[in-house]
C-alpha cells in the first residue's frame, strides 16, 4: 500500500477523513518513493526513458509548484544566461535533485551551441 507525500497511508484517504477535515493537499500528493517504484515498473516494461522521467519527478517532489514552474520558465528559449542555468543546476543538486541538475547542465551546453541562451 502506498503512502502519500505527507506520509499518510493511502487507505486513510477516505471521504470520512475528508469530512473530519483531516486531509490536506499533501495527503493526495505522490511520494517520491512511489515514483521510484513506478520507475522500476516502467523499466521492466521496456521504457527506461519513462523511468528516468519518474525519477526526475521524484526529485521534483521536493520543490514547490512555484519553483517547478520557475524551473520550466528558466529552460524556455533565451530566458537564461549560462551562469543562470549553472546556478540553477547547482541549486537543484544542492537540494538532492541530481538528475534534474544534470538535465539543466545538458540544456545549458546545448543552448550555448544553438544560440538559445539569453
Amino acid at each position, binding site marked *: 500500500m502506498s503512502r502519500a507525500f505527507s506520509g499518510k497511508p493511502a487507505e486513510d484517504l477516505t471521504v470520512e477523513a475528508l469530512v473530519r477535515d483531516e486531509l490536506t493537499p499533501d495527503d493526495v500528493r505522490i511520494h517520491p518513493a512511489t515514483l521510484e517504484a513506478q520507475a522500476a515498473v516502467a523499466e521492466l516494461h*521496456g521504457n527506461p526513458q519513462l523511468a528516468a522521467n519518474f525519477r526526475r519527478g521524484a526529485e521534483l517532489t521536493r520543490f514547490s509548484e512555484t519553483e517547478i*514552474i520557475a524551473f520550466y520558465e528558466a529552460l524556455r528559449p533565451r530566458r537564461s544566461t549560462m551562469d543562470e542555468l549553472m546556478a540553477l543546476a547547482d541549486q537543484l543538486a544542492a537540494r538532492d535533485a541530481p538528475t*534534474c541538475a544534470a538535465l539543466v547542465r545538458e540544456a545549458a551546453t546545448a*543552448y550555448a551551441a544553438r544560440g538559445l541562451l539569453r
Partner: protein
Amino acid sequence: MVEQPVGRVRFMDEQRVNLDGFAREDPALGLVALHSPADPAPSLRVVDGIVVEMDQKARDDFDTIDRYIAVHGLDLAVADEAMALGDVAAARLFVDPAVPRSEIIRLVGGMTPAKLARVVAVLRPAELMMAMTKLRARRTPSNQAHVTNLLDDPLLLAADAATAAAYGFRELETTVPVLADAFSNAVAVTVGAAVGAAGVLVQCAVEEAMELEMGMRGLVSYAETVSLYGTEGVFIDGDDTPWSKALLTSGYASRGIKMRVSSGAGAEVLMAGAEGCSMLYLESRCVSLARAIGAQGVQNGGIDGASVAAAVPRGVRELMAENVMVMARNLESCSGNDALMSESHVRRTSRTLPILLAGSDYICSGFGSIQRYDNMFGPSNWNAEDIDDWLAIQRDWGVDGGLRTASPSSLGELRTRAVEAVRDVYRALGLGDFTDEQLAKAVDAAGSKDLGATDALAVLDAAQAIRGTGLTALDIARALHDTGHDEAAARVLAMAVARVHGDHLQTAAIFDEDMRVLSLVTDPNEYAGPGTGYEPSPARQAEIDGIRQERGVEDLRVSQSSFAGGYLTSSGPAAFGTDPRDVVIGVSPGVGRTVWQTLSGMLVVDVLQELLDGLEEEGCLARIVRVNSTIDVGMVGLTAARLAGSGIGIGLQGKGTALIHRRDLPPLANLELYSMAPTLTPEMYRLLGANAGRHAKGATPVPARNPYTDEAIEARYHTSVISLVALERDCVDPAAAPEQLSFQEPRS
C-alpha cells in the same frame, strides 16, 4: 472566353468534397506525406557509446532535437541490429502476428527517426491496421471527448461532461474561448464527469504553465497540451526546447499527474518551417523525442494540421502511420481523429474508419461530444451530430470504439444531478449562484444556443475566485459531500487519491468504472493473430449491440396493437362471385388481427376505403376477403381474382404492398404492382382500385406506377417489414379457406 464545363462536371463541382482544398505535392514547402527528397537516409554511428552521426548528420551539426534524441532516445544496445534490418524486412515484423509486440518494441528502440519513418512508410493501409491492432499498448481500446461550449457556461459544461461520461468516454478534454475562464471550466467538467461516472480523466487545455497549475491543484487529472515539433525552428517559435518540455513532463510526474505530449503532421508546414522534409519524417522526430523526454504517450495523427496532411496524396495514410510510430515506440497513442479534416462525410469517415476498426488507446484525441458550434477546439471530425453514427458503426463491425448508448430515459435525471452539483459547489464555495431556470435550461439544452442569456462576467469571477483562493480537488470533494452529492464527492476524491498510487502514470492508463487502472502494465495488448488480443466481454458486447434504436417483433406487435379496431369482421367462408362487375380485394392473414397499420403510416382500413372508392368510381361491386393460407401478396391477389365474378382481384398485404391480379395469370405475374409500400399515398390506392375496375370492364388502363425515391427506403423499413411478416405469419393457416369480411367504414 472560358468554356463552361458540361453539366455533369458542374454537378460534380457542387458536391461537398469540392469544398476541400487539395494541394499538389510541394516538398520545398513540406507538402509531402511519406517521402521527401530532403529526408535524410537513415544512419547511425556510435563511437565509445556516443552517437557521432544520426540520419546523415554529424554530432557537431545536431540541432536540439537531434541532440536530445541521440543522448536519451535510442537503445544503443540494439541499434546495430535494428539499423541493419531492411525497411521491408522490418515492416514485415510489424504485421507478422507470430512476432510478438515486445520484439518490435525492442528493435524500434534502436531505430533512428529516419529509419522508423522509412519502415512505417512501407506499410499499406491494411498493413497499418494490422500493425495498429498488434502494437497499441493497451489491450482495451478507449475514447476521448471534447466538452466545451461557446459561453464557458458551467452548468452546461457539467451536464455535457456527465453526458459524455455516460456515453462511455474515459477522458474529457475541455478548453476555453476566454483564457481567464479556465479554472471555472476545469471545476465544472470535473464535477460533471464525477456525476456521470467514476474514473473519468479530465483535462483543460490552455497554455503550459496554467495547465500545470490546475493539474497540481487536482482540478484536472491529466495534461495533453504539451506540444512537440519536428524542426528546431518551429520548436523554438513555440517557445520551448526539448529540455524545457522534459522538465515540464517531470513536473507533472512529480505531482502524480498523467500527461502526454501533442504533435502531428502539418504544424511545421503551417509555420513555414518544414525544411523541405516529409510530414512522416518530421513526425518521427517528434515521436522519438516524446520517448526520449520520458512522456508516456503522444497525441498525434495530424491534430490541428490534419487537413494539411489530408490535402496531399497519401496524407490520410500518413496520419495513421504517425499513430503506429507512437505505438512502435512503446507509447500511448491518442490517435488524432479530432480536427475536422473534410467537409465531406465520406472523406472524414474514411479518415477514421481504419483506426476505429483496428482499435487504439484513444481512437479520437477529441471526439466532439458537444455540437460542432460549441466545440471550442474547432469542430471535430466526429461531433454530437455523429454519436449515433459512431454507435451504429461500432455495432455494424462488432468493434469497441469506446462508446455506449446512454439510456435516453436516464439522461435528464443525470444532467439534472450534474447541474445541481455544480450549483451547489459554486454556492458552497462562494463562486456564484444560479437560478432554477438556468438549471432547467442547461439540463434540456442540446447546445449553448439553447441557454438564452447568461452572465459571462459571473464565469470570469468564479474562475478568478477558484484560482485566487487556491481551491483544490479536496475543496471540491468536500463541497460536493456537504451538499449531499456523496457519490460525486467520493469520485472526485478517488481521482485525487489515485495520484498517491501513481499506477495511472504508466503507459496508456485509463481507469475503468471500478477505478481499476488499465494500462500497458495491467492490461497489455498481446495480440498474436486471430483468436487473440482484445475481445469485448459479453457485457461490453451487449452495450455495443444494444443501441436505443433497436426494434424487435414484440415492439412492433405493441405498436400495431395501438391501432387495433374492430372494423373488419368475418362473416363466413368466401363464395365464388358470378356478377361480371364483382371484384374481390384479398387481404393477407394478419390484417385486422395482428396488423392494422401499413408502412406508409396509413391504417389498413383507410387503404381499403380508397380501394373501395376507386372501384365504386368504375361502377364495380367490391368484396373483401381474407386469404388465410398464404402471406404472399401474389397468391393473395390471385386467390381473390379466382373468387371474383370478373376474374379481377386486388391483393393487399398488411404492410401496404398491393397488386391487381387476374385469375388466368400465373401467381408471379400480375397486372399492376405497388411494391414500395412506405411511399404510397391515399391517391395511389384509389387509382389502383379504379384501375382494377377498368380491368374488370375489359379496358386497358394506364398502369399505376411505383413512386420513386432516392432515399435509403429499404434501410429505413426492412426491419419493420421482417417484423410485420412475422406478425402475418402468426396468422397463417394453410388449411383455412378464404373468409368473407364485412367492413365498416372507420369514419362515418
